[in-house]
């Protein structure tokens, strides 16, 4: 079982390494996008799947990451990707710590609404501060450099892939540490956790900051991919997409968000190429998921596996 899983991951990574050499250029672009979305979805699921917190303002941290890159390039002229990425980690951590501190004491729908409100506040700010952010026009993101080398499509792809692998390992590790188990206990029964000595607010806050940091990293990688940032990156509807990806993939499984991000990116690309009714299809998929597969693709996979296992026994 363990070995099977390891082989599965290995094959997945080999396919990711090989595909830019065999597939068309556009596929490399799509894969880069999917990997970035996967980092974001994993970050989001630290809160939703593991701590049981539903955030509606997660575009904020993604947007902060993206804007940190764009603003630093525009106003300070920093073009080195490693410094840009580090700065995004810091800025999203700071904003996440601030907003998180104000939100985590509230639960369920109040928490969701507060995160939404803060997200929209920063969206409006980005929109209105024209002299800094160029408002709705957004900011161009000229090509940065990685360790002095031009951030070409290939280098960008492998950089994103490396960040994706490292982030996945770090997040997996954290979620399987005593801290991660404590988050799950909080998800299941915050009051019981409090009565065995867990300072629930503190842990929720830490989870929130962690989630913000990885979301910010995803945003920082996304900015050079699109070569342009707009306030839409901070809009709650954009943040809704990450929730969507996590639900498609399955929030109760660790790999669910990764699968959701890939499926979403490719389905979106395919559907928007053929019809303008993408939002309708998006809605229909969501309805099917909620009614038929409440635990997403991974939930369905586990069910099938269980069913096959039972049949084998008889």
């Amino acid at each position, binding site marked *: 079982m363990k070995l099977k899983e390891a082989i599965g991951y290995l094959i997945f990574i080999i396919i990711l390494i090989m595909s830019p050499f065999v597939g068309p250029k556009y596929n490399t672009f799509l894969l880069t996008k999917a990997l970035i979305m996967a980092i974001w979805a994993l970050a989001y699921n630290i809160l939703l799947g593991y701590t049981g917190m539903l955030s509606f303002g997660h575009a904020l941290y993604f947007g902060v990451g993206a804007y940190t890159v764009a603003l630093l390039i525009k106003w300070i002229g920093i073009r080195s990707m490693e410094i840009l990425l580090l700065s995004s980690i810091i800025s999203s951590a700071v904003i996440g710590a601030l907003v998180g501190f104000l939100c985590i004491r509230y639960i369920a729908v109040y928490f969701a609404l507060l995160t939404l409100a803060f997200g929209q506040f920063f969206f409006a700010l980005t929109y209105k501060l024209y002299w800094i952010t160029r408002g709705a026009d957004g900011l161009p993101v000229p090509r940065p450099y990685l360790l002095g080398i031009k951030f070409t499509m290939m280098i960008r792809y492998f950089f994103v892939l490396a960040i994706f692998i490292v982030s996945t390992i770090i997040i997996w590790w954290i979620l*399987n*540490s005593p*801290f991660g188990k404590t988050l*799950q*206990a909080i998800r*299941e*029964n915050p009051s*019981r956790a*409090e009565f065995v*000595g867990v300072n629930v607010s503190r842990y929720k806050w830490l989870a929130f900051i962690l989630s913000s940091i990885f979301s910010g990293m995803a945003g920082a990688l996304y900015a050079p991919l699109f070569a342009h940032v707009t306030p839409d990156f901070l809009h709650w509807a954009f943040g809704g997409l990450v929730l969507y990806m996590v639900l498609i993939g399955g929030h109760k499984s660790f790999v669910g968000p990764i699968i959701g991000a890939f499926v979403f990116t490719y389905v979106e690309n395919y559907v928007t190429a053929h019809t303008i009714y993408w939002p309708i299809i998006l809605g229909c998929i969501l309805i099917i998921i909620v009614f038929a597969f409440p635990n997403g693709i991974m939930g369905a996979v586990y069910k099938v596996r269980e069913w096959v296992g039972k049949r084998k026994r008889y």
Partner: protein
Amino acid sequence: MGWEEKTILEVSGLKKYFGEVKAVDGVNFAIKKETITSIIGPNGAGKTTLLNLISGMLKPDAGKVVFMGKNITKMPPYKIAKLGIGRSFQLVSVYDGLTVFDNIRIPILSRMGKTKSMVSLLERDVKVKEEANEILELFGLFDKKDVLAGELPHGDRKLLDVAIAFALNPKLVLLDEPTSGVGVREKRHVMDVIEKAVREKGVTAIIVEHDMDIVFSYSDRIIVMHQGKILADGSPGEIKENEEVKTVILGGEIL
């Protein structure tokens, strides 16, 4: 002076009103170390409220709770738990979506101060595993360690709730009806485990209980509550002979 050292918990002038209802209305008592004290009384006497006040779930309107010389009256629950007061709940409170094993690992991690650790992997922590297994053996839940807590039968969930309290290695446990809904044979077992912990590990227990058989055979001391006040306080023998207690409580509502 010797008396002071033997006291683990001191409650004085404790009051909690819910609007017109005087749930706890000026309660005073001191609990000696390594004893089992039962709190009995009719429904609505304020027993659960009293436990909630001690464990920090509710803040009193007046009065003081002192635990091992420390004023804990206004402390949040997690700090009180860290000081060594574990509790279980009248309505089972466990982690339904986690396995029985994980349910026990959480309080052990908390007690060891490991819950903050992000760099180690939980599965590799042999010490936590061993201690969890020990507690599970003690409560007869070892065979069910991989079952989700939400899928256990009621009696086992109740046991698990109590086991979580004991996994904290507390100096004082507050048990709110630990044997309600537990099978007759298991009732004795639960109480034996609690008694063993009290006698061997130096735990002190305060138990709210409705089963008078259990109360009279395991308690060192019984506090009888009625309408938020203490009606009687003494050894099981004394309480049995108390005429007032007989009419108010033992007479009708409970037995």
